[in-house]
């Protein structure tokens, strides 16, 4: 099994190597990067390219590690035992009927190898990664209610994404491979855009890309626009059929590009940008 990028996801050389190493050694791959550089998409695309079913586990601040393993639904068992009719009184006797399998359980017991995405692990409680150490290292866990050991038939290919909001514990990191998705350079970006908009007009694209990188390089922006914002903006430009002239005035005067709201998501940033444009046009 080797990952070589897909038709709609541009993977750089080092990213491909990272994925292939994770596949070869069956270790979880921790992916970090600026928001909007395609961390979550990576898991989807790799699963797609390798033909593996993808199980997803999206982490929130309230998520507990146990929920990924299994949950014991005591409330419905109680209800079944109270309102005993014929089927439910049979059901009640077997505790297995009330164990809700979590994502990890499903991934471990699947008959074919699967890919597993643990999305935004940094959103969870500080103890969360520590609670998953053994599960990710040995790929097994113990279910106390049924007294059985759940062991992975095939080690799943695990992707973990993080936005760096919390630092992850060292013990956890030692069990993972780590890859930082760098913000793509202009060449890679052109590839990415070509993948998403095969029919975009070349002049429009080059002007739009220049505007995009100019905006990214503005000092003092609170949230720099990222790849996904560029794609959204281009989508809007194409959908609205904005003419090339709107992006680029004849005498090369600086103007506020149309639909800039797709790139700048913060009103302070927009004000700063307008101010800079105004100052520049006055200086000419």
């Amino acid at each position, binding site marked *: 099994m080797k990952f070589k990028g897909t038709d709609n996801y541009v993977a750089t*050389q080092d990213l491909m*190597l990272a994925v292939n190493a994770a596949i070869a050694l069956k270790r979880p791959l*921790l992916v970090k990067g600026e928001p909007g550089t395609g961390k979550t998409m990576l898991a989807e695309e790799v699963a797609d390219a390798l033909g593996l079913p993808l199980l997803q586990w999206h982490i929130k601040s309230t998520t507990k590690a146990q929920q990924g393993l299994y949950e014991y639904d005591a409330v419905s068992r109680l209800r079944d035992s109270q309102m005993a009719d014929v089927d439910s009184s049979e059901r009640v006797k077997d505790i297995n009927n009330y164990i809700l399998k979590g994502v990890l359980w499903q991934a471990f017991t699947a008959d074919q190898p699967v890919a597993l995405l643990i999305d935004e692990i940094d959103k969870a409680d500080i103890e969360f990664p520590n609670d998953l150490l053994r599960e990710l290292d040995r790929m097994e866990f113990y279910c106390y209610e049924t007294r059985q050991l759940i062991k992975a038939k095939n080690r799943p290919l695990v992707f973990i994404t993080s936005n760096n909001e919390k*630092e992850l514990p060292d013990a956890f990191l*030692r069990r993972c*491979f780590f890859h930082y998705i760098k913000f793509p350079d202009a060449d890679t970006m052109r590839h990415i855009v070509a993948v998403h908009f095969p029919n975009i007009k070349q002049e429009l694209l080059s002007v739009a890309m220049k505007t995009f990188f100019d905006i990214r390089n503005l000092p003092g922006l609170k949230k720099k626009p990222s790849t996904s914002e560029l794609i959204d903006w281009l989508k809007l430009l194409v959908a609205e059929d904005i003419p090339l002239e709107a992006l680029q005035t004849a005498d090369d005067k600086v103007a506020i590009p149309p639909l800039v709201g797709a790139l700048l998501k913060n009103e302070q940033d927009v004000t700063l940008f307008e101010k800079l444009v105004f100052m520049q046009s006055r200086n000419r």
Partner: protein
Amino acid sequence: MLIDFFYTLRAAKLPVSVKEYLTLLEALQAQVVGPGSDACSLDDFYVLSRLILVKDEKHYDKFDRAFGAYFKGVEMLTDFTQEVPLDWLEKILQKELTPEQKERHEGGNKWIGTGGTSPFGNGGYNPQGIRIGGKGGNRSAVKVWDQRSYRDYDDTQELGTRNIKVALRRLRRFAREGSAEELDLDGTIHKTAANAGFLDILMRPERHNNVKVLLLMDVGGTMDDHIARVEELFSAAKAEFKHLEFYYFHNCVYDFMWRNNKRRYAEKFETWDIIRKYNKDYKLIFIGDATMSPYEIVQPGGSVEYNNEEAGAEWLQRLIHAFPKFAWINPEPQGVWEYRQSIAIIQQIVSHRMYPLTLKGLEEAMRMLSK
């Protein structure tokens, strides 16, 4: 195998463990890179070893330097986290190279020019070429790890707003306060059991971040050099904390402060009032370069702006007495602290809780404050 490499990384203060080293060997044995696979260049080994050994992008820069040093055959025993300024190298090279070459030269194999095979100059083919500035054609002079493109992520470097926000987030404390609106399931079950099975519902307040911060900022004078960074810190702090109170002072704290720099003389807030207004829960953070004349701190009447009745040191003492959780964040680089007498005095007053305005310094400060 690769034992020296491992120790080179340890010497560069990278937190690599034996387990990770063994994993790297395992990967090599599994032919992830190497002759058995289609990835067999040194670049691929670089990516693989970084993938396995480094677990945080803030260490990438250190790793790049250590990797470069090791594969240049330099045994790394000294601390190369120090930087060699580029112009030193340029000067030395110019000295070495100038005497014989008198005019522009192209091609050939000895002298500087473009397109030749000599190790110096642009766009040539010498594998160990040196390039000073300019852009290379064959990517052999400056290797991937020598580009040091992760320099910004090194945590001893200065920081952008997002990094600051993440650092400040350490201070978040969740507590249940206010009106009860969430069902406390465990409590309800407990109460119901105690109530012999009759339902007794228990509610509790939702969790909120209730950290309270009192920010005192130095403005004007020597702080003008640090405006951009302090602004970043301030905007990040405003987004992160619900209870953020801020006041300005100039150089040192005296008997009044202000909240609006335009109306600083019209709208004064007595320091005594500030001390009384906020309770002990507030965490006190000073931001200032602590760079001034020592008289401004220790002498009554020492202020540069007016005749203060009590010395700044007195006021500082009072403030840190009133708010036991405090820290001083100093935007001056830590290296110059020991040469400034006033910084030493302030350090003493704040019992050495002074931290530089870098990601690491900020994290340390926040960790100290949240203890």
